[in-house]
Structure formats: structure tokens, C-alpha cells
């Protein structure tokens, strides 16, 4: 073999092997993230595809080899008896295609997951080859690898300590070697090449060792800057500039309300729950004229976590227990309060003994917040309250029993608010607390009020927040409506408080076998509403905000009974229901075990599929872009292989087609020779003339011994090259 050729081979081998090592770093973390993934098999397949690509066989042969390998590893991964059968592959695709179509990510089977990984590896082996050998630039790949490892290290359980050192070494080595190979303009003779590359690696190695050792021994500091993730998702109203656009979301500081906000769909938590309902987080009682504060310091009391008493209800709740499993996302990680549905009786999380409760502000807090550990996941048991109209209308609170903090109003509150409150009640003819509250609630549904997030005013220094909204702007979002309602009620001497939390969120998937649904609650679902106290019943939520429906409507007693009836009727066939229940219980148990996995899994699966599609699209685009070169190469190869006249005729026709596309059309009147002259004029030379002459010979001496020579083939190739390149 030619010496120079060998040098190039050595170079390819080194570069490609380093690329392989770097790509292996993408596979190792899969083991940590996906318990189901068969990493050993992935690595075997990865090395196999790299080997096949490295050999640079004919494209179809290499494709075939990879496809066979693919089928074998699939069959091994599902432990099929036949290694070469395509049926399991086919079945998997059919089975999982429908899950993907319905976005039921959690149903996707493990073999199919593995299959996706195998496909990804297959495709990436082409990409790596393209980056390393064709493009001679692997910067993108190197940067992506760093990005991948750091993201995994930051946001998942994957520990990147040792991998980052490996990645650093392989990435720098492989980047340097690719650059080395691209730098030398001529191929070095093998002896010189070996000598140079050894010296080069020594030089590079010494710099790299210094870098790695320095990186290893340098003391590791804790983060000096605050965590950017909650910083980006939560708005801090302390710093609220009047002009500043806030992001929607849950904030703890409400002492200055007003101003526009941008919608922000950062996912905060997901809830796997029996019903869709509001999530309450806290209440506030002190209205300042600008916003909400608390009238007293928060003092928590310990409560057993399976019998939480929030002081919300004056009577025990009677409805059936329901369950919700709530998972906080990392974006919500610094939230130390539980979001809970109305009627919560128990919260279970990793430490199942007690939690901190503050009744005055309706707070539920994780027990050991000092550790800095955030809430990740908890199960809530709740009995949905039912508010019965009759009970509420008969409720009377003695003046003496009223707590001043729930009827508090600032002294500067404009008189016209009191007047408006009286007017509303009078107009509605309301007599009891319920009617008054409903009248005030209904006041906001008039067409005068508009729901608006962007064009929302901030009160001037001497202006009241509620006054501005009620009489001037009349457009705003939940904070405007809820605060205004509380203030109007208090103006009527009704006990009311301001509630913050979240609406029910978006339903993302319904498990048909289970009664539960999964809801995603994002920053957009942050909400505020109103609670009114009814003696003997408790705190009852009201929803004044335009466009929102109340979490728990107030129903007449008759309706209640009716609503319960269907349930009773359903129990006609008890056996059936029992068996169904059994099933669903089983499912539920399984679900809750796998739930945590599935949350991350579905996101990763989504990304995996997106990545696959992008790569496939990229490869297709590349093939389409290079289609002429590819077709030309094919025809060329066929001519050199067969040396047949037929192959030349095909090639010549293709050339004519290419020329036609370049605007060089052969007119009817033209002879082939005349046409050849015009072509040669454009592409300086006499190649077309030679080809045309040969073609004529072929045409007129059919069957006789016209030989396809190498010169003709090369002339054809050169002319094709020129024609293809000249257009670009």
C-alpha cells in the first residue's frame, strides 16, 4: 500500500477512535437516567456502527450491515428467540406509534425506547463521520458534548465529576487532532507523520495535563451568584419598577400590586389527581391600599401530617377521600410551601410524621426546611367540600365574634368605595351575607370590566389600588378583581380574605384505565381569589375574576342529593365495579411507583424523538442537496465497473438532463455536434464534442465493437463536475 495512503489511514483511525470515545460519553448517562435502557447493548451497537462506518464500504453495503446489526440488537434486547427476525421490530413500531400519536409517552414500551436509542446511534455514526472526516470540523460536536454533560450534571441526578474529566480529555484531544489533520495541506509521508504526531501529542498532552491537573486541584467553591432558575421564573415585586413588565407567576410579595405582566408558561408542578381543582397556597389579611400584607408574624404549629387542621371548616367534611400526587419541578424548587386542594386532610412526603401549619394564613410548610431541601413530591388526601346554599344563607355571625383583621380596611380608603358597596347590595336587594357576597361577585361580571394583562395601571402614590380599578381603569387581572371584592365586602363589614394559589392547570394525559388525570400547572396558572367567612360553615371561596369559573360552586341542597344519586345507581352491578376498582387500584399502585420515572422519561422521550427527527431531516436535506453528485458518482461507478455501452448511454442522457437544467437546451434544429459546440463554449474545453462524437458512434454502430474507454468516462465525469459546480 502506498505510504502516504497509510498516513491518511492512521490519521482517520486516530480521529475516528477519539470521536467514538467522545460519543460513548453520550451513552453512559443513559444508564442512570433510564433504568430500562440496556447500556451494554447500546455500547456494543455503537462500536459496531462506528466500525462499519470507519471501513468506508459501499454505501448500500454499510447500510445493510448496520441494518442487520440493528435488527440483531433489537432482538437481543427483547430476548427474542430468532436473531434475524424483523417481526418484533415491526410489532414494536405498530404498537408504539399509536401511543406517540396520542402523546401517551408513559405507555411507550421499553424495547421501543431502546430502539429509539439504537436508531439515534445509527444516525449519529453518520453525523460523526461527516463532522470528523468530511467536514474536518468537530467543534459543534465537542461543544454539544460539554453542554450535554453539564446540563445532565446540573439538572438530573447524574454526577458529572469523573465524566467531565474524561470528556475534557477526549474532547480536547479529538478537537486538536481534527484540527491537526485539517492544518496540514499536504499529506505527510508515513515516517515523518508518525514522528510529527508523536511530538504533537506530547506537546498537546503536556498542555492538556497541566489544564486537567489545574482543574482537578483548584478548590471548588459553592455558587457565588444566586440560582438563576427561580430568579427567572418568579417576579419579585420589591424591585417592581412602575414600567417594569412582570412575568405571571407565583410570588410571595404582594405589597405593591398592579402593572402589566407577560405570560410565562414555565412548568411549576404537575398533579396526578382524581379531580381538577384549585390549589391553595396562602391567604393574606392586611390590605394597605397598595397591596396585601400579613397582620401578624407567621408562627407555625406542628401537626401530624395525616390529620391536618387548617381551620377552614367549622364542620367536618363528609365527602369521599380523594387523592392527588403533586410533583414540583425544578423551576419551583425553592418553594417551601405545599400547594393543596380545598379540604386537604393529609399530606404525605418523604418524612411521614408531621408538617408545619399556620391557620391564620392557611400555610402548609415542609418540616425541615433548614436543610435547604426542596419539596419534590407529595401525596395529598382531601375531601372536596360542598357548599350548600341553604346553610350559607342562614349563617349569621355575631358582631362580637368577628375578627377585626378580616374586616380591616386602610383609613385612607376613599369613601366612594363604601358607597359603591352599599349601592351594589341595595340594587341586588341582598339581605344575608351570601346574597351580599354573590351580589359583589356578580358586580364584576358586568360588561364594564375587562380582563387584561398588559394594559394594567399601577396606582399613583396617593391613589388606592382598588379605587383605581373600580372607578377608573376597570381592566385588570385576578389580583385586581380579588382584591377589589375583598375590599368591597369588608366595606360591608363582611369577613373576607385574599387567597393565593393556582387554578386547576392543563390536563395533559388521561389514563383510560385509571380515574386519575395528570395536570400541568405553570406560571400562567398562578391565581388569586376570595374567601368569605360563614359562621358554622367556614371559609368559602368566591371567584370574582372575569372569565374564571369557581372551584367549588355553591349548590342548593336539592342539587346535592341529585348529584349523589347517579353514584348510587351505578352500583347496580356491584361485582363489575369491584373488579374494575381492583384493576384501577393495581394500575394506580403501579402508576405511583413509576410516576417519578415517567415524568422525566416522557420529556426525554419527547426530546429523543425530536432529535431523531432533526437528524433525519438534516441528513435528508444533505442528500437532496448533494443528489446530483451522488447520482453522478453512481453512474460513474457503473461505467467503470461494467464498461458497457448501456451504462454510457445512461450517463450521457443524465449529462444532457443536467445541461438542460442549466439552461443549455438542445434545440430541435440543432445537431448533436452543434449542441456540443455551444456546451464546450460555455465550459471551455472540447469534452462535450468528444462525448458527442462517441455517443454518435454508439448510436450508429449499434452492436458493433465500440469500446468505452477510460478517457471517455473521465471526460464525462469532469464535464459533469463542472456543470454541477458552476451553478453553485
Amino acid at each position, binding site marked *: 500500500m502506498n505510504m502516504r495512503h497509510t498516513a491518511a489511514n492512521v490519521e482517520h483511525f486516530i480521529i475516528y477512535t477519539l470521536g467514538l470515545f467522545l460519543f460513548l460519553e453520550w451513552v453512559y448517562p443513559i444508564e442512570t437516567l433510564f433504568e430500562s435502557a440496556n447500556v451494554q447493548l447500546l455500547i456494543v451497537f455503537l462500536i459496531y456502527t462506528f466500525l462499519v462506518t470507519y471501513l468506508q464500504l459501499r454505501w448500500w453495503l454499510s447500510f445493510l450491515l448496520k441494518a442487520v446489526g440493528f435488527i440483531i440488537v433489537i432482538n437481543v434486547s427483547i430476548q427474542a428467540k430468532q436473531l434475524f427476525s424483523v417481526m418484533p421490530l415491526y410489532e414494536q413500531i405498530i404498537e408504539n406509534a399509536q401511543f406517540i400519536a396520542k402523546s401517551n409517552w408513559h405507555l411507550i414500551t421499553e424495547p421501543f425506547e431502546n430502539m429509539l436509542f439504537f436508531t439515534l446511534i445509527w444516525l449519529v455514526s453518520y453525523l460523526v463521520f461527516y463532522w470528523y472526516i468530511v467536514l474536518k470540523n468537530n467543534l459543534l460536536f465537542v461543544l454539544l458534548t460539554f453542554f450535554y454533560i453539564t446540563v445532565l450534571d446540573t439538572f438530573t441526578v447524574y454526577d458529572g*465529576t469523573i465524566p467531565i474529566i474524561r470528556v475534557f480529555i477526549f474532547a*480536547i484531544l479529538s478537537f486538536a487532532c481534527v484540527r491537526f489533520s485539517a492544518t496540514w*495541506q499536504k499529506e505527510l509521508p508515513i515516517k515523518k507523520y508518525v514522528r510529527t504526531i508523536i511530538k504533537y501529542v506530547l*506537546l498537546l498532552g503536556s*498542555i492538556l495535563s497541566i*489544564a486537567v491537573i489545574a482543574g482537578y486541584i483548584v478548590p*471548588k467553591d459553592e*455558587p457565588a451568584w444566586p440560582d438563576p432558575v427561580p430568579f427567572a421564573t418568579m417576579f419579585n415585586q420589591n424591585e417592581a419598577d412602575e414600567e417594569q413588565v412582570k412575568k405571571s407567576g407565583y410570588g410571595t410579595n404582594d405589597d405593591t400590586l398592579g402593572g402589566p405582566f407577560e405570560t410565562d408558561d414555565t412548568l411549576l408542578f404537575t398533579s396526578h389527581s382524581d379531580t381538577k381543582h384549585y390549589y391553595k397556597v396562602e391567604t393574606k389579611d392586611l390590605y394597605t391600599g397598595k397591596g396585601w400584607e400579613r397582620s401578624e408574624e407567621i408562627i407555625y404549629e406542628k401537626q401530624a401530617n395525616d390529620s391536618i387542621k387548617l381551620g377552614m371548616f367549622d364542620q367536618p367534611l363528609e365527602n369521599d377521600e380523594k387523592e392527588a400526587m403533586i410533583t414540583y419541578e425544578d423551576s419551583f424548587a425553592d418553594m417551601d410551601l405545599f400547594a393543596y386542594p380545598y379540604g386537604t386532610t393529609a399530606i404525605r412526603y418523604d418524612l411521614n410524621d408531621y408538617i408545619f401549619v399556620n391557620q391564620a394564613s392557611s400555610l402548609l410548610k415542609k418540616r425541615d426546611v433548614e436543610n435547604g431541601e426542596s419539596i419534590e413530591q407529595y401525596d395529598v388526601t382531601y375531601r372536596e367540600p360542598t357548599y350548600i346554599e341553604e346553610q350559607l344563607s342562614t349563617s349569621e355571625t355575631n358582631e362580637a365574634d368577628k375578627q377585626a383583621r378580616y374586616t380591616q380596611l386602610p383609613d385612607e380608603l376613599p369613601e366612594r368605595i363604601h358607597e359603591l358597596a352599599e349601592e351594589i347590595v341595595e340594587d341586588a336587594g341582598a339581605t344575608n351575607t351570601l346574597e351580599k357576597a354573590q351580589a359583589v361577585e356578580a358586580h364584576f361580571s358586568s360588561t364594564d370590566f375587562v380582563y387584561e394583562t398588559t394594559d394594567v395601571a399601577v396606582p399613583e402614590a396617593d391613589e388606592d389600588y382598588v379605587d383605581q380599578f373600580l372607578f377608573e381603569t376597570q381592566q385588570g387581572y385576578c389580583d385586581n378583581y380579588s382584591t377589589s371584592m375583598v375590599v368591597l365586602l369588608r366595606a360591608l363589614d363582611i369577613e373576607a380574605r385574599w387567597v393565593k394559589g393556582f387554578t386547576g392547570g392543563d390536563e395533559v394525559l388521561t389514563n383510560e384505565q385509571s380515574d386519575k388525570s395528570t395536570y400541568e400547572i405553570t406560571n400562567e396558572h398562578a391565581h388569586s381569589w376570595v374567601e368569605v367567612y360563614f359562621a358554622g360553615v367556614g371559609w368559602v371561596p368566591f371567584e370574582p375574576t372575569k372569565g374564571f369559573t369557581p372551584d367549588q360552586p355553591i349548590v342548593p341542597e336539592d342539587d346535592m342529593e341529585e348529584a349523589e344519586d347517579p353514584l348510587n345507581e351505578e352500583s347496580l352491578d356491584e361485582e363489575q365495579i369491584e373488579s374494575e376498582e381492583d384493576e384501577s387500584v393495581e394500575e394506580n399502585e403501579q402508576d405511583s411507583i413509576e410516576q417519578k420515572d415517567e415524568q422525566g422519561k416522557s420529556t426525554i422521550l419527547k426530546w429523543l424523538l425530536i432529535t431523531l427527527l432533526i437528524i433525519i431531516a438534516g441528513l435528508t436535506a444533505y442528500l437532496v442537496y448533494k443528489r446530483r453528485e451522488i447520482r453522478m458518482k453512481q453512474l460513474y461507478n457503473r461505467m467503470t465497473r461494467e464498461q458497457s455501452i448501456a451504462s454510457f448511454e445512461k450517463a450521457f442522457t443524465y449529462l444532457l438532463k443536467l445541461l438542460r437544467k442549466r439552461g443549455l437546451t438542445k434545440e430541435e434544429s440543432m445537431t448533436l455536434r452543434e449542441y456540443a459546440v455551444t456546451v464546450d463554449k460555455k465550459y471551455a474545453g472540447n469534452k462535450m464534442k468528444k462525448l458527442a462524437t462517441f455517443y454518435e458512434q454508439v448510436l450508429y454502430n449499434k452492436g458493433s465493437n465500440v469500446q468505452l474507454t477510460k478517457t471517455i468516462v473521465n471526460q464525462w465525469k469532469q464535464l459533469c463536475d463542472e456543470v454541477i459546480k458552476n451553478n453553485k
Partner: protein
Amino acid sequence: MSQTFKNRFVLLLLFVIFAVLYAYMQFQGGFVSSFLLTSYSVLLLYELIFYMFPMKGWSVSRSFSEKQVYAGDRVDVNISLRRAIPFPVHYLLYEEKLAESLRTPYVSLLTEQLTQIKKRDVIIIEKAPFFKRDVTFSYALEHIARGIHSGGSIRLVTTDIFGLFKKESHIIVDDELIIYPRQLNVRLASDWAGRLLDGYITTAKSFEQDSVTSTSVKEFSPGDKLSTIHWKQFAKQGELMTKQFDDEKRAHISVALFYDEKNASKQAQESAIEYCAALFNHFTNEQIEVEASIHYDSDQVIRENNSRNLLFSLTTLSHQMKEKRVDETKTIQSSPNTTFVYLATTMNEQLMSELKKNSPHQDAVLLYFSHSTALNDEDKKELKNLQNYHVRVQLITEKTFINDQVEVKSE
């Protein structure tokens, strides 16, 4: 995009990466971010040192393997470079854009038989000096063309281990490379010599037979031919005397080269030049008085009677250096004893007027250089017509050359 701009862009990019890693470290803390930042900083430091490192302290000198080089020969060029500080460099590129005159290789009618020689533009040599302070680049120029070659630009490029920055240094080398016309050995065929040098031979014979015809004697000086010693005088006076002859009695050859750069082929032209030099040397060696004249640019003439000067004139003969020498316009002196050897590549007016002028009493040979394929019937006819001017025509084509030794004969 210029290299400086590219380098600055890369520098900016490196700092952006640093900023990103720094921010990552500040936000995240822990091993991964600190490791990345520190290790990257070490590499960045290396890159910065490389970026700031000056290339100005490098001294470069060039030398050629031989002092006197003839066209078609090979010249070995050596460039030695000395670096002031041995900063480790794994790649050093020497790139020389050859002077215009060096790009096209030597061609003559003779080279037709050689394999085709590629045109060369740029010499690229790559070296990996690492810590070495002295680096030598050497290359050979094969089939070098006649002329005085100077100019061309040299560029040294080096890059860091990651090939991110490319640093260049331009070197101006003001040395000249003089390439003389290729040397031919001319052997005159006997009949040709006989006829052409009739006058000379008879003169010599008559002189030997009849010493009385000598007009005067002078003292012998080293270098005079032994046959010209006046032995009788020596016998009489005991002193070595040599015989002196009248000018008109002595053979005189005029070699006239008609250089027509515009119309003639390069090969024919080059061969004509080589013949001119070779014939002149041949006659000089034979002690025949010879004068050469070079006719070019339709009315310019250079006259030489010294073989060194002629060689130099022929060397510089090409339109790039025509302004170098300007001689007064003179016609070839015609004395009855002068034999003319014309060397031409085209039948231009200059040649015709010379032929006409000398035609009444001349004994002349025209060596006509051309590609055999370039001659058409009309040309041949015209050449035949030249006999009217008492010129014998000999056609020299690429077929004339059998080996390096050239035989000149009449038809």
C-alpha cells in the same frame, strides 16, 4: 476575511466561552463547573501567549546550489530560518509565490521529446519544528527557464496546537537568480563547414603555401597560433615573430539572431538563442573572427563580439528586460569576406531587409527554427524564394534534435 480579522474573531469567541464558563461556575459551583473553568483557562492562557507572540524576530536567508545555472537545469533552493525564541510550534508553513518568470518551465524544440512539464505557481513546504530554532526549507526548481529571476513573495504561516490562530509573516527576498541559455555542443557537418568556411580554409592554405602574402610581422605573444610563426624571420633574427594578414583576407563570420517574441513560438525562439550562443562559441574556439548581433523589437540591435557579453545579452533577452540594454542601431558590416549565419524564427521585415541589403555579395546560411507542424506550404514556398538573396536555408525543427549534440548540416 483577512487573517487578522479572523484571529480577532476567534479571540472574541474564546473570551465569550470563558465568560459563559465563568457565569456557569458562579451560578452552579461544585466540581464540574470549577474544573471546566480552570482547565479551560489554562488552554486559554496558552492561546493568548501564542496570540501575542511576535514573529518579527525571525531571520531568513536564501541560497542557491549553483552559481552559474543554465536553462533547463535544476536549481536547489535553500531557505534557512532562525527563530529568536524557540516557542514550541508544531506547524510552520513556507509558501513562496514564484516570480512570474519562474512559473513557466524551460521549453525549447528539444524539450518536445521530454514529457510534459507542469506549470508551477506556488511552493509549499510544511515543517514541524517544535522547539528547534533553526529551520531549513529546501526545494528544487526543475527545468528552470532562461532569464534573470527576481521578485516573488514569501509567506511564513504558523498556527497553535488547535489551529485556531494563524499567524503570518511576509518576507521580502531581493536576490537574483541568473539562468543562462542552455549550452549546446555544435558540430558542423563537414560539407556545411566546407562550403560555409570556404574562404577561411583557402585563406589559411594559401597563407601556409605562400608566406609572402603576409603583409607584416609582429612579435610573438602567447596565444598566437604556432602555424602563424614566421619561422624564416626566426631563423634570420632569432626572435619569434608571427605573421600578420590583411583584414579582408581573413575569414569573418557574422551570426545574426532575429528575435521575434510576438510571433514565434517559445520553443523555436529558445532554440534559436541556444544556437546563437553555441555557434558563436564554436567559431571563437576555432579562432574564427565572429561577431554576433541580436535583432529584436523590429529595429533594435545588440552587437557583441565577446562570448561572455553575448551570453549575458542572450540571457536577458525577453521582453521583461528589454529596457536593460539599448544599443545603437547598426547594420551588419559587410565585407567581401564576411559569411553570414542568420538565425530566425519568423520571416519578419527586419530579416528581409537585412537579407536584401547583403544579398549581392554574400555567402549566407539561414537557420530557420520552427515546429514542423507550424510550417505550412506557403511558408515553405517563401523559404525557397529566399534563395534569390543567395541564402541557403536550413530548417531546424524538433525532429532535428536526435541527442544533446547538435549537428548542423545543409540540405
